[in-house]
């Protein structure tokens, strides 16, 4: 690959209680590109994201950002290295207003003016959020919470953005819109690592992709290659 | 050796070890010995857990519940018999048993149903006062025990509305306030003896005075506390059966559903209010019955027995044992009642040490000593 990897996962093993959920996974997320990760339910996709974030620290293996190892660092240090995340299941702060949620997305940024700028951008993408800026996030509909979550990820203006199933529970219109947004984010120079079930649309915007099954990477290639890969096609294209 | 035979041996051995341990623990007085024994027990349990022995014992127990129950009852009887002539150990054993009953009540309330109750001592106290007031009347004393429970339940119904409407910490304050109120009221109001307390006449069953030693022969005189121990043991067994049956029935399931997710429970027809009322009332009833017998055994009660700190002791037994765990409750009651007593030798330092020990236990076993397992409706049956 021509571009340097912004994020690299090397041969990691991770477990929750006893059995390994990840068994020697290696991935490269090239800078400035969209890299996607496909795979069935329970394959371990979210676990990779948790491992990168230090929430489920890997038992073995290494994770590098810009060549620097992240393993063993506490989560907030990993975030300071320039990673942000739009977690699986939205995870908004339910007792906080939309504005506070967004403000927290930019927690590591101190300048009020910058934050205001970013928030305006988010409101531009999601007018609904502007309308509901003072609603408690917990009372919003499933899809609205997804908007908060995505907006919150954008507020960090990260180098690398990890996105875990963003279109879960979004309307078809919005799913499309969502992929456009991801594309736009990427166009701004942010490296994106995208976990998705929605194979068609994902491969349409991704540059490179991995396919996981039962804790291992079973296929990889450019988006093109993957869409043409027969096995992948059979397994995941409904 | 077959598996089932092995299981049986394990259970009998375990019961014997427990009996021996209890006897030693109750009998010894020397500070050093007590600590040595505690450290030894802790090491045994920790070591056993490390080596997986505990787990395999647990399996043996789970497979033979009936035998286990009988073995443990037998162990208790052995301990009691051992101390047949010694008043004080019997008093302590009876106290533990009665605390177990009261804590079973709390277990129904917040172990099962999630209705917190920080006024356990107050309901226990209602039972005590019932016994004190009725003890001199012609009401049969076995009935007094029952009435102690019933009146505790009735007094508790004063709190039903706030208890039903609140959750979590808010519910905690309702009961805390009630507990403080109860004690202050007894102290200020002189009709029930005021701060000086009341004497309680002893238990009397069909003309058999519980407060007399039982002379078996010239040189064997069984302590009168044996009467109370036996009655308390019967009550514990009954309570235990009741608790088990509740837990292993749809009622137990309803309780759990109410505790874990009220909204979902309501969406599947579970009447939250009904089950909360049942749990709260039944719990207070149990605490009240225990209180009634306790008062008769002690012969004297005063408001300062039913302070907030006493309620907290009951709560700590439940938590230490593991919420909703019956065997855990018994173990924890033993520990919480006996440990401060055993620490008498270090006198004014004993509460310091006791509190430190409790903190350590909880740090090492945050879920309690014997956390409650999954519900097994029918022992040994898995479909």
């Amino acid at each position, binding site marked *: 690959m021509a571009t340097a990897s912004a994020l690299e996962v090397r041969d990691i093993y991770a477990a929750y209680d006893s059995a390994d959920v990840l068994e020697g996974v290696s991935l490269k997320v090239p800078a400035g590109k969209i890299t996607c990760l496909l795979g069935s339910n329970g394959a371990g996709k979210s676990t990779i994201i948790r491992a990168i974030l230090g929430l489920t620290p890997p038992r073995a293996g290494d994770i590098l950002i810009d060549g620097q190892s992240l393993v063993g660092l506490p989560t907030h240090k990993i975030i300071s290295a320039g990673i942000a995340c739009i977690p699986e299941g939205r995870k908004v702060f339910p007792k906080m207003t939309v504005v506070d949620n967004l403000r927290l997305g930019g927690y590591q940024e101190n300048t009020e003016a910058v934050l205001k700028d970013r928030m305006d951008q988010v409101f531009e993408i999601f007018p609904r959020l502007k309308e509901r800026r003072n609603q408690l996030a917990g009372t919003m509909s499933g899809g609205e919470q997804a908007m908060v979550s995505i907006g919150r990820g954008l507020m960090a203006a990260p180098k690398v953005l990890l996105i875990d199933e963003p279109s879960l529970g979004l309307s078809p219109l919005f799913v499309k819109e969502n992929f456009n947004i991801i594309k736009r984010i990427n166009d701004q120079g942010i490296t994106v690592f995208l976990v998705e079930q929605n194979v068609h649309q994902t491969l349409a915007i991704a540059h490179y992709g991995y396919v996981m099954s039962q804790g291992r990477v079973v296929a990889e290639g450019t988006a093109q290659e993957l869409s043409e890969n027969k096995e992948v096609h059979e397994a995941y294209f409904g | 050796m077959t598996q089932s035979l092995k299981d049986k041996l394990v259970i009998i051995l375990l019961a014997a070890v427990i009996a021996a341990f209890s006897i030693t623990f109750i009998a010894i007085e020397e500070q050093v010995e007590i600590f040595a024994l505690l450290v030894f027990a802790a090491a045994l349990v920790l070591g056993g857990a490390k080596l997986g022995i505990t787990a395999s014992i647990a399996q043996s127990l789970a497979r033979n519940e009936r035998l286990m129950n009988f073995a443990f009852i037998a162990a208790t009887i052995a301990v009691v018999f051992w101390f047949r002539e010694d008043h004080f150990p019997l008093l302590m054993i009876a106290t533990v048993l009665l605390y177990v009953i009261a804590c079973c009540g709390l277990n129904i309330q917040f172990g099962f149903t999630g209705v917190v109750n920080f006024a356990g001592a107050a309901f226990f106290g209602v039972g005590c006062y019932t016994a004190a007031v009725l003890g001199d009347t012609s009401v049969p004393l076995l009935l007094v025990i029952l009435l102690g429970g019933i009146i505790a339940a009735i007094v508790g119904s004063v709190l039903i509305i706030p208890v039903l409407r609140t959750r979590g910490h808010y519910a905690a304050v309702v009961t805390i306030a009630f507990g403080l109120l109860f004690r202050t009221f007894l102290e200020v109001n002189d009709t029930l003896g005021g*701060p000086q307390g009341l004497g309680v006449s002893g238990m009397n069953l069909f003309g058999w005075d519980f407060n007399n030693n039982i002379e078996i022969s010239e040189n064997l005189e069984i302590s009168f506390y044996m009467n109370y121990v036996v009655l308390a043991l019967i009550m514990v067994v009954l309570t235990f059966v009741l608790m088990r049956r509740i837990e292993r029935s749809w009622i137990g399931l309803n309780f759990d559903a109410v505790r874990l997710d009220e909204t979902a429970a309501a969406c599947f027809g579970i009447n939250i209010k009904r089950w909360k009322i049942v749990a709260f009332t039944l719990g207070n009833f149990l605490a009240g019955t225990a209180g009634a017998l306790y008062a008769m055994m002690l012969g004297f009660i005063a408001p300062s027995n039913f302070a907030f700190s006493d309620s907290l002791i009951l709560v700590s037994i439940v938590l230490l044992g593991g919420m909703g765990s019956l065997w855990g409750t018994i173990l924890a009651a033993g520990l919480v009642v006996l440990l401060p007593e055993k620490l008498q030798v270090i006198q004014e330092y004993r509460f310091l040490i006791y509190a430190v020990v409790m903190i350590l236990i909880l740090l090492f076993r945050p879920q309690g000593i014997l956390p409650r397992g999954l519900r097994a409706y029918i022992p040994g049956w898995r479909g």
Partner: protein
Amino acid sequence: DAKDKVKVAFIGPLTGGVSAIGVGGRNSAELAVQLRNADPDAKYEYELVAMDSECKPNVGVQVATKVAADRSIIGLVGHYCSAVAMGAVDIYHKFNLPMSVWGAVLPDVTYGNDYKEIHRVNGTMINQNDVAAKFMAEQGYKTWVIIHDTTDYGKGHNKYFSEYLTQNGGEILADFGVPADQQDFTAELTKAKQLNPDVIYFGGLVPLGVRVRSQMEKLGISAQFQGVSGIKSDAFIEGVGTELSEGVVSFLEGAPVDKLPGGQYFTEKYKAAGFAEDEEAYGPFAFAAMSLILDGIEEVGPNRKKLTKYLGDIQGHDSIVGKISFDDHGQNTVAAITKYVVQDGKWVVWEDSEYATGARKLAGK
């Protein structure tokens, strides 16, 4: 030749709010045992078993049972908290354990039963309040406001003091019952201030007494502060400070220790024994009670029944708190009440004080 070992016991509150007094009592009883063991003429070697009642009746009954059921324990010095004593006396009777109370002042402890095992070296709150009411009336005070805690101790004092005060022509403008752990008395005291009494009578123990006295000052109440035996402790003076304690009066059963032949001896020995805590107001009683029991065992041997009998016959027995004579309820009848007043940061026997001579005056005089 080794002496036979004999066990004696002490029960008192060693933890919790009134532990200072309990530990002081325990130390004093311990001292009595130590001194006896050091005495080459003693027939036995004594061992003290001390127990904590936490000042809670249920715990008290437990430890009482433990002590009483242990046949190797021959005699007991027990109880500062009256409610605990009330619960425990039945047990001592049942097990025939001779005992003497060292601090509880509720009359019923001795008078509420006919148990021959129960004795008390200290006086009851009846004697104390009788003297207190007379004395204060003599000083010319007319009106009182009473603040007492709602434990048996405070309520008992309130009851007897009110009774005697009315007999002596005093008037009670108001009485306030407060829980023993109350911190703030400004509401009660503001009301008291409005009533403008000559005297504020306080029935309770040191911690509460300190608070009431301190807060009187805050609200500018200049009435005389009168306490009960529960505040006759250096801790009270330390707690309120020298200035505010000046002129506070209190009443305590028994002759002042340092006035008695053995008193000086006790104070010296207590200091010499190196206890970390003070003996507190009732330490001398614990010492006297323990000494009495040891005397008895020396005399009649380690036998509960005989010791009970011995104690029953005690008349005019010398002790550091004066002569001890038990009436038919085991109550020490020679319960002289001593009046104390704080002068320059010290409790001084009234008669020896500059207040008695008129050099200083109580508040409002």
